[in-house]
């Protein structure tokens, strides 16, 4: 039985037995290499569900403020987000059924579109380790590995660490080789990094797609929208854009699971992960914590140790 068929069967069973009121999964999208979130409450509709390398969205996003019981198709990163939401008491554990799926990476659609340089991608199929694309009538083949999302290239949690049911066999976990883009940034001087971030974040149009697709950005009133006090203006001034991204990284410290949804959502193609990746790396080094792996661990910024590092304090 193929993975998709197993998934659909599991979904059908969960709905028929009343274990969940709705299944949140992925269905075929309207663009090549694109899937879209779907909400299935009828067991007859489960054949809409798909599972492939285009299932990028982090579905944990849709769990906050739900009144019903939901079964969620969860990749490793998505499941970790769900764990974080439970730890932060935004979602009740017994209101979620985590349907783990084996993930070996999501294809970075934007990267392929960019490579085509204005030529139109009409259709695409994934055949093993190749992505076969119909580019305006002619066929072009891309090596899947080279076009995986950056977050997937260094992923060490391809399978849900915690789940209620797992579809098929687990994906093989790999040890990350480390990030080249992050280590390049770390080698730069402060001035060079400032120039880099100025240019990169200068593309930001403040659409807040990054914030909205992030499952852990669930505040009813985001700091950006506060008027008393007013932290940020609404213009595109460089300082405003930096303030927004710096503060968002701060608010996600110790909570970000690096699902990559923010970078994938950004219409301007900004590599938003750099900042978050660096923060999570330091959080791991300083406080030995990785987000979303257990219900018992307290997030690092919600606790302290008497011997926390403090060499920088005079």
């Amino acid at each position: 039985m193929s993975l998709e068929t197993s998934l659909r069967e599991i979904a059908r069973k969960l709905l028929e037995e009343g274990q969940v009121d709705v299944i949140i999964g992925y269905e075929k999208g309207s663009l090549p290499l694109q899937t879209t979130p779907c909400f299935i409450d009828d067991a007859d509709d489960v054949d809409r569900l798909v599972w492939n390398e285009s299932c990028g969205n982090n579905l944990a996003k849709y769990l906050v403020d739900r009144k019903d019981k939901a079964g969620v198709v969860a990749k490793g990163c998505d499941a970790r987000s769900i764990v974080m939401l439970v730890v932060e008491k935004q979602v009740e554990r017994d209101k979620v059924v985590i349907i783990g799926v084996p993930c070996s990476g999501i294809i970075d659609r934007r990267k392929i579109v960019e490579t085509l340089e204005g030529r139109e991608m009409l259709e695409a199929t994934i055949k093993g380790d190749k992505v076969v694309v119909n580019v305006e009538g002619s066929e072009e083949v891309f090596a899947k590995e080279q076009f995986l999302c950056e977050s997937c290239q260094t992923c060490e949690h391809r399978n849900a660490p915690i789940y209620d049911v797992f579809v098929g066999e687990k994906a093989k976990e790999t040890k990350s080789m480390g990030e080249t883009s992050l280590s390049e940034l770390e080698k730069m001087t402060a001035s060079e990094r400032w120039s880099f971030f100025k240019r990169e974040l200068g593309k930001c149009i403040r659409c807040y797609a990054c914030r909205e697709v992030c499952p852990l950005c669930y505040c009813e009133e985001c700091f950006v929208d506060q008027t008393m006090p007013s932290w940020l203006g609404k213009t595109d001034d460089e300082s405003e854009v930096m303030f927004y991204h710096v503060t968002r990284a701060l608010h996600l410290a110790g909570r970000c699971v690096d699902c990559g949804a923010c970078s994938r959502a950004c219409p301007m193609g900004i590599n938003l992960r750099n900042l978050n990746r660096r923060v999570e790396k330091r959080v791991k080094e300083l406080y030995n914590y990785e987000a979303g792996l257990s219900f018992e661990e307290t997030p690092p910024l919600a606790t302290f140790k008497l011997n926390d590092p403090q060499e920088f304090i005079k």
Partner: protein
Amino acid sequence: METTVSPSTEVNKEDNWEPKIIAFLCNWCSYAGADLAGVSRIQYPPNVRIVRVPCSGRINPMFIVKCLERGVDGVLVSGCHPGECHYISGNLFARRKFTILKEILEFVGIEPGRVQFSWVSASEGEKFARVVRDVVEEVKALGPIERMVKAAPI
């Protein structure tokens, strides 16, 4: 510590430019320590504008970023020594927040040394003065702040 010389420092820096530094001091320890320095007539540079907060844990890291945005050249945050917080653990939570804030600011390219932290107790008037002297000197060497400052687009 890296010192950067920004273009305006070369061109506009007057010899009598003095950095403007905002200091967030916790009421029970650091503010009292600053007060002690004053009462004891210990001299320290006048570049510091003090904002009194009940506890270093009250400080929202956004205050610090907002200061930089508004053109403040340096920010000092000072609280009770760990274990001595008037509210028991405020400074212990703050310590982690400040660590992460410092990591982010430095990674983004704000010069290390613009945002500084200290533990100063109520009896450490002398230490407070010394901390301020050090901070002023270090910020002065960095020059006026340019990165992160809200500037009117042309």
